[in-house]
């Protein structure tokens, strides 16, 4: 089949990202030709500021080198500007007369810097700040001249001013408005910013309108401002003027081809222009009336556009919420959404001018709609995430200002701020990755997302407790280009564009019963998934259709396949179940015999009130289980682990309830229960709480008049105290409420969410409504759990009776 011809005009960040996305999903559909007016392959434009500041080189910021185009069979024309599109004939023509045909055309022409219409802008030494050429010109000028004037106190102007100052120039920023960055900052934050930039050596002239640029011998020599009425206009000497007063979508070419433009090239939600063969992405477009000037929205557009170019036709772009970070080393500033407030919105403000910290959160209808942070931006990405998710913050409102760390999201060694960490300090304790390594990878490899960083550095890819720190490093290194993925749209993994919720819904509605069928029905992008999605799918199938769905052992992690925990040297550990932490002489004697017989090197009492036999050979597992004659402790599974108990009223002088028996009953009822993640419970016989019920998924505390139930605690990576759920009178009620809560979690949580994560997302009120307030729903949930558990076998006994030899035995050569 002859390939379709795709031509792209504009070799910048949005266009090339679209090609990358397209090549991922439809590598062979098009013959691709690219025209770029600049003489360079695609580079990371936002990092021009660190280049100007001398912190990076042009080489560091290249995203796709010429080889990348060659490897992907893309014909690349550098330094060639397209000046004409002939839509009837479907051709484009360059300034020097080269003509190429297209079946699909992609416009990604970016923006052009705006020049004030005043006399003198054509003098030598008057520059704008947009590309490598401009950056070089500024670096050269800084080496030769002394006085620079930057017109425009927005993000670009300040970054240019900072760079020129670091290169030794005497820099004055001239701004028309009352305060700096007025589109991103309120007055208070802007004042703090101005002070700290002044302390670095920049000068500012606010509320000044430039009237004219003065010249001598064809080169700029100064600027003159518009006079106050009746006065002479002041002047300021300058050997270099950088005009940073704004950008305009570059629509020249599109307009000349008769495409509908309104500020930008008008596109619909599929990134299509008014000519269905022509798509447009990036800063040049106007989508639902908005033209964006940051890269995060461009990446979302690129994904959608690629989807349609690949004829998949399912993606929609619905606009973006953006955030900004100023990339001036040593200045911490973050702004997102509508920070002006007004109307029916409320503001929470914290201001400490002496410490140089200012924070403002704007709230409407219990949702964050904007925020400005200065001096302490640690929680910027958290607020931004809450904003994008439109999350109801009424429950955490009191803690918002103290930040996410206050909610227990601390890094290791108590670190909660990446900015204060030295480069050699470890960020990821699991994989030993330092701050410097992460920042370097972000810059050199052009990483934009948390996923990218995980893939390239491994940081935050294991236990995840350093995710907050990594996000901060991302945000401070790439500025506003960092957009945390909205939790609602988080896909299962790279094998699909669907969310966990989408997949669960399809499994339920379509009654899907096996992994291959599910992947086929949902158009999985990979032939047999990956190590992330397969275990999740397996769980969703089994929990939705108990007794019907097909279990796939090969989609389970080895521990759940071998029913034992793999150890670092390839041996396994065996943890037999001791209901409620109780045992007896016969069991202990059998354990001792097994240890001797199979020469088990280590016997350890676990933190979960039972005994761990460590270092068992895989081949020995079935016989160890047989000789133990004790049920599986599921210490290896995403399932109910232990129900810890204290001695309780049977023996303890304080005990008011029989906590041991309650624990045994809970464990006997729910053992063999698989779940999105492991589940731990505890029962204490009085509020002294010796079984640590306050940090369990379900914690029960005996009181004189009955039992208190707490849910969604966690004692692991981030310790989370369980929340009070309900108080009940009888042991039967404890079973029913606990069971219904767990079933709701089993049915609704994402795979690998502990209860704490699920409840944080769903909201405790919602969970209470389903389980506590609605008695018939509670009984239905509990009934579904009991049905799922009915007939479930002890996995060890099952294998002792008929082990599939393939699972445990070696072959011989």
């Amino acid at each position, binding site marked *: 089949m002859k390939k379709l011809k795709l031509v792209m005009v504009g070799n910048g960040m949005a266009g090339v990202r679209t090609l990358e996305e397209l090549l991922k999903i439809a590598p062979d559909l098009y013959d691709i030709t690219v025209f770029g007016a600049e003489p360079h392959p695609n580079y990371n434009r936002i990092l021009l500021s660190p280049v100007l500041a001398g912190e990076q080189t042009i080489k560091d910021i290249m995203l796709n080198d010429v080889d990348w185009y060659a490897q992907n069979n893309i014909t690349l024309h550098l330094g060639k500007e397209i000046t004409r599109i002939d839509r009837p004939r479907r051709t484009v023509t360059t300034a020097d007369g080269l003509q190429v045909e297209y079946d699909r055309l992609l416009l990604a022409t970016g923006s052009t810097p705006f020049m004030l219409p005043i006399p003198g802008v054509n003098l030598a030494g008057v520059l704008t700040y947009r590309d490598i050429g401009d950056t070089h010109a500024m670096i050269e000028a800084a080496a030769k001249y002394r006085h620079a004037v930057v017109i425009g106190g927005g993000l670009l102007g300040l970054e240019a001013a900072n760079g020129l100052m670091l290169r030794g120039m005497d820099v004055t920023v001239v701004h028309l408005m009352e305060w700096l960055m007025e589109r991103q900052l309120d007055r208070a934050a802007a004042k703090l910013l101005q002070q700290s930039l002044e302390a670095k050596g920049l000068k500012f002239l606010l509320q000044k309108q430039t009237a004219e640029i003065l010249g001598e011998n064809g080169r700029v020599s100064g600027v003159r401002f518009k006079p106050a009425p009746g006065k002479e206009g002041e002047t300021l000497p300058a050997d270099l003027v950088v005009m940073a007063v704004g950008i305009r979508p570059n629509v020249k070419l599109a307009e000349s081809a008769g495409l509908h433009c309104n500020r930008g090239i008008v596109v619909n939600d599929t990134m299509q222009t008014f000519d269905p063969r022509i798509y447009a992405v990036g800063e040049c477009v106007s989508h639902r009336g908005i033209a964006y000037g940051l890269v995060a929205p461009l990446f979302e557009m690129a994904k959608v556009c690629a989807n349609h170019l690949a004829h998949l036709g399912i993606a929609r772009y619905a606009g973006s919420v953006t955030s900004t970070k100023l990339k001036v080393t040593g200045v911490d500033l973050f702004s997102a959404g509508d920070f002006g407030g007004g109307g029916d919105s409320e503001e929470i403000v914290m201001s400490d001018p002496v410490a140089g910290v200012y924070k403002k959160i704007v709230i409407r209808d219990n949702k964050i709609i904007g925020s400005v942070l200065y001096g302490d931006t640690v929680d910027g990405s958290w607020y931004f995430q809450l904003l994008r998710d439109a999350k109801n913050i009424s429950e955490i409102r009191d803690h918002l200002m103290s930040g996410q760390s206050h909610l227990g999201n601390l890094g290791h060694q108590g670190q909660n701020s990446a900015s204060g960490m030295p480069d050699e300090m470890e960020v990821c304790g699991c*994989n030993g990755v330092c701050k410097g390594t992460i920042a370097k990878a972000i810059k050199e490899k052009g990483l934009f997302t948390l996923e990218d960083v995980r*893939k*390239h*550095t*491994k940081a935050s*890819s*294991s236990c995840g407790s350093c995710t907050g720190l990594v996000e901060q490093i991302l945000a401070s290194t790439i500025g506003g280009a960092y957009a945390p993925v909205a939790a609602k749209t988080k896909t299962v993994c790279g094998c699909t564009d669907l969310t966990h919720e989408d997949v669960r819904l399809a499994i339920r509605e379509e009654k899907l019963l096996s992994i291959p069928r599910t992947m086929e029905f949902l158009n999985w992008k*990979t*032939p*047999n*998934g*990956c*190590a992330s999605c*397969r*275990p999740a799918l397996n769980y969703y199938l089994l929990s939705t259709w108990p007794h019907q769905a097909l279990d796939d*052992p*090969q*989609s*389970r*992690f*080895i521990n759940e*396949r*071998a029913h034992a925990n*793999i150890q*670092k*040297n*390839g*041996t396994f550990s065996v943890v037999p179940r001791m209901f409620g932490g109780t045992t007896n002489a016969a069991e202990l004697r059998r354990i001792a015999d097994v240890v001797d017989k199979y020469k088990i090197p280590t016997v350890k009492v676990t933190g979960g009130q039972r005994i761990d036999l460590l270092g068992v*050979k895989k081949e020995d597992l079935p016989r160890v289980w047989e000789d133990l004659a004790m049920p599986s402790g599921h210490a290896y599974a995403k399932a109910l682990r232990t129900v810890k108990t204290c001695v309780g009223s049977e023996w303890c002088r304080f005990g008011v309830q029989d906590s041991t028996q309650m624990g045994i009953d809970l464990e006997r009822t729910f053992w063999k229960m698989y779940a999105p993640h492991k589940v731990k419970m505890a029962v204490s016989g009085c509020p002294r709480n010796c079984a640590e019920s306050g940090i369990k998924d379900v914690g029960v505390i005996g009181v004189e008049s009955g039992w208190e139930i707490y849910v969604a605690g966690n004692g692991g990576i981030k310790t989370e105290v369980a929340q009070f759920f309900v108080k009940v009178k009888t042991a039967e009620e404890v079973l029913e409420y606990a069971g219904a809560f767990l079933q709701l979690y089993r049915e609704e949580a994402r795979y690998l969410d502990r209860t704490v994560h699920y409840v944080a997302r769903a909201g405790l009120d919602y969970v209470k409504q389903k389980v506590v307030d609605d008695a018939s729903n509670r009984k239905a949930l509990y009934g579904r759990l009991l049905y799922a558990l009915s007939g479930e076998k002890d996995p060890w006994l099952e294998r002792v009776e008929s082990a599939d030899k*393939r699972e445990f035995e*070696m*072959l*011989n*050569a």
Partner: protein
Amino acid sequence: MNNWKNICPLDAIPPLGARVVRNGDIDIAIFRGRDDHVFAVADRCPHKGGRLSQGIVFDNKVACPLHNWTICLDDGKAVAPDVGCTQTFNVKVEHGQVFLAAPNRSSSSNAAAEFFPPLKEAI
């Protein structure tokens, strides 16, 4: 010079699963990948020696059970950003039987010594 040995019937390896062959000092993992392709690699992750045979297999790759490195089964190489390589062996399927070109024992222990430092803990 291939020294083919019949190891087992293909059916003895679960689809998207693995079995282990002990060959002298070195354990070789035989994988059954996508579309019944069969691969043989040393059962030792280039990271910290994890048993690859115990990992989840997908698309002719395996995710190591210890720290989730992904290893390509056809060339034994770790998928970027990780770097490392585990030894591969020739293997083929004929008439439903799996044949391994097992290095003979003495040379295999040399090969093993070359590729892997001796294991500290006994397996």
